[in-house]
């Protein structure tokens, strides 16, 4: 993909993210009715869940790029996988923080260790945070690219476990919305608002990913140029 095409995609995604998030947040505050039990505080759902799903999407993207690297040995996928992990960790932090705020207002605690969903997401987040330690402890080159790719692929195994934990757990306090009764759990207005917010966060992640990737590529090319000139 050429740099100008990537930049124009980043601009389009940024504009889409701004529009969709503005619309989604406006709908969440002014259109969607209060939830029967949760009341007004249920509105955190429209930012917390899309951000969590976006974090998963980033980690899946990183694993896909890692697989492409191992398959083709093309080193450009290394930077793409690394950037996707970078974005996933940022969205992971946001998931933990917004989830913690929701827990405080809903359950009265900032965190609870008895919920497998929360603990597994924290494990997933810490796993991907350790990716950076691994990456920066190895000299740049094909070996580092392969090690990082294998690590990113291992991490993706944790995602279905984290996602399914909420459905397999017993004695839940974490709410389950997306199950077989999603039509009963969410009204039409709630589902539409959620989808708009999810599209907005995915567009935001895509835009940040392309910008970050451009920056990292520029950094790498400048290093090559410096070596060539010195």
């Amino acid at each position, binding site marked *: 993909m050429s740099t100008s095409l990537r930049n124009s995609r980043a601009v389009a995604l940024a504009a889409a993210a701004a529009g969709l998030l503005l619309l989604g*947040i406006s709908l969440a505050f002014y259109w969607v009715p209060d939830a029967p039990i949760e*009341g*007004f*505080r249920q*509105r*955190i759902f429209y*930012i*917390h869940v899309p*951000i969590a799903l976006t974090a998963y999407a980033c980690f899946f993207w990183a694993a896909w790029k890692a697989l492409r690297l191992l398959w083709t040995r093309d080193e450009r996928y290394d930077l793409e996988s690394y950037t996707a992990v970078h974005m996933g960790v*940022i969205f992971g*932090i*946001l998931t933990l*923080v*917004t989830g913690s*705020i*929701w827990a*405080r*207002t809903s359950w009265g605690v900032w965190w609870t260790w008895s919920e497998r969903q929360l603990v597994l997401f924290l494990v997933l987040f810490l796993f991907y945070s350790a990716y950076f330690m691994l990456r920066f402890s190895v000299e740049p080159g094909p070996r580092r690219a392969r090690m990082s790719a294998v690590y990113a692929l291992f991490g993706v195994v944790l995602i279905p476990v984290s996602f399914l934990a909420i459905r397999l757990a017993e004695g839940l306090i974490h709410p389950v919305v997306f199950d077989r009764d999603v039509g009963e759990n969410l009204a039409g207005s709630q589902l539409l608002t959620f989808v708009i917010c999810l599209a907005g966060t995915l567009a*935001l992640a895509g835009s*940040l990913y392309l*910008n*970050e990737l451009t*920056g990292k590529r*520029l*950094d790498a090319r*400048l290093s090559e*140029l*410096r070596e060539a*000139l*010195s």
Partner: protein
Amino acid sequence: MTSAERYVTAAYLVVLAVVLAYLVIYAFKLSRLEREVGELAELARRKRDAPPEPEPEPKREEVAG
């Protein structure tokens, strides 16, 4: 403002703050890259303007006999 309203607002503001913090960090990165490009351009200009290095004289082959 009720307690629930305060927490919901805080959740949305946290997201906004993190995105803005990311933008600030990215702006710093861009200014660093711009500075580095300037340094490299200066280095390239100096190399271009420098007088060409004298070519080493070819070794004379000794004629045997």
